[in-house]
């Protein structure tokens, strides 16, 4: 990652145009050619400096459902339970965290019913309690990271 890559990442975390030639517009604002911007974005994605380039949707606004859930998994069952939980396509992220509640995962589904079904099924297949922590109020989402 060089200085131009940093400028691209810092400038393009929001506000990418919806227009006929959006990369051209973004490139001009950065003093680059369209081709160079496309090539650099491709490389940043390939080396996973960027996890994605495109629109970030509000899943709930699209009628979908989203929640954060946690489980208290006995150490000796951790790998087995992780495999069960990860096997659900509804589970978008799953993190091990240092706490009594040691497994935290985000579920995203197209409908609220699918979310309830997935949580029930995870409880049934693991025999463990799932603590469901859906957001009650969102105060902020988003962050610009300095590259």
């Amino acid at each position: 990652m060089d200085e131009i890559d940093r400028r691209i990442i810092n400038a393009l975390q929001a506000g990418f145009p919806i227009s006929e030639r959006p990369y051209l517009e973004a490139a001009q604002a950065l003093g680059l050619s369209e081709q160079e911007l496309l090539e650099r974005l491709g490389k940043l994605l390939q080396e996973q400096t960027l996890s994605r380039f495109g629109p970030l949707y509000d899943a709930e606004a699209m009628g979908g459902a989203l929640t954060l859930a946690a489980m208290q998994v006995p150490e000796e069952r951790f790998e087995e339970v992780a495999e069960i939980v990860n096997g659900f396509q509804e589970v978008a992220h799953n993190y091990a965290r240092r706490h009594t509640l040691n497994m935290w995962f985000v579920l995203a589904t197209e409908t609220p019913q699918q979310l309830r079904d997935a949580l029930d099924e995870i409880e049934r297949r693991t025999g463990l309690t799932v603590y469901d922590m859906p957001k009650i109020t969102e105060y902020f989402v988003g962050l610009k990271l300095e590259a």
Partner: protein
Amino acid sequence: MPNLDETDLKIMRATQAGLPLTARPYHAVAEQLELSAVEVIERMRRLQEFSVIRRIGAVPNHYKLGYRFNGMTVWNVPEEKIDALGQKIGRLDFVSHCYHRPRHLPLWPYNLFAMVHGKSQEAVDRQIEQIAEILGDDNLGSEVLYSTRILKKTGFRSR
């Protein structure tokens, strides 16, 4: 909130993993969905206007940019004050997500969640101190949960 139809959902599904890296990306999406480019562009502008699209651009990988200390800070604050406090914490420039979530007593007394990100443990410790200062006497208890391992991470609707 606008009424979203099946065409909006198709556009969402076709673009949520990323925009094509070609000179006319919205035309490429339109072609794939057998729509006109004008329709894709107009619909996406409308989705953005109503915040169904939160933003469009680069989503960096925290770790690759050196933000290796990512803590989920959780706080027990009085329910009647949580909205005012949550808004203050959400305005801090190092907080990426800030939510009111339900308690699960007695195991889980925390109702305010704020994700913080730093390039060093010291940086994150200072951020946590700043949050504690803002909460003051309304901080009835807190913890910071650091991730020890990513067990699964898909691009799908990720934040």
